[in-house]
């Protein structure tokens, strides 16, 4: 069974600075998908970014980018120019290529400080 680990339960960053959230996962599969979800205080789950394991290029969405290291089974999220609205829980998630179920990590609570 796949597992997802987020080793940083809480982090903080100053507004406008850059922060990186860590995620590692364990799988024996070669093809799969990885995701980062954001959960602000409103409780809504919001998709931040998605990576396909068979693509070498790291995904980027505006201020959000990932560092995908397939051999190391690492999938970190970098947030540039942090904004107060980035304050949230961030969940890393794994999805098998042939399955539909997600496996989520325990989450990292990020606080952006003014």
């Amino acid at each position, binding site marked *: 069974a796949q597992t*997802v680990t*987020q080793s940083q339960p809480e982090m903080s960053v100053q507004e406008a600075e850059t922060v990186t959230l860590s995620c590692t996962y364990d799988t024996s599969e070669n093809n799969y*998908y990885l*995701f980062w*979800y954001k959960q602000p205080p*409103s*409780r*809504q*789950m919001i*998709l931040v970014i*998605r990576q*396909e394991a068979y693509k070498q290029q790291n995904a980027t969405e505006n201020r959000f980018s990932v560092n995908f290291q397939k051999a190391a089974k690492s999938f970190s999220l970098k947030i540039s120019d942090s904004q107060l609205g980035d304050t949230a829980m961030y*969940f890393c998630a794994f*999805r098998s*290529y042939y399955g*539909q*179920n*997600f496996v*989520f*990590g*325990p*989450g990292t609570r990020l606080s952006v400080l003014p």
Partner: protein
Amino acid sequence: DAGITQSPRYKITETGRQVTLMCHQTWSHSYMFWYRQDLGHGLRLIYYSAAADITDKGEVPDGYVVSRSKTENFPLTLESATRSQTSVYFCASNKGDGYGYTFGSGTRLTVV
């Protein structure tokens, strides 16, 4: 664009009572899921459904029952609520492709 609607948003119930959480989606997505969110565990899969009348267990199914008679609805029933079922419950749906889930806004359930 209604998306996924969960109800109620908050619920308090007593130990031993039956309670049903509702989930309705408007996109005709094939797949629907129920997750529970607990501190330190992230989200854990309770049950999922690939289509109407097809359901399967996830990681933590004990004490829960689901049904899916129509594509758009996927209710979750706690047959006899226990305090350990106090949690935030999320419903989600997916077309069955490689993209992410669409989540409902969650139900915070407290069992006293």
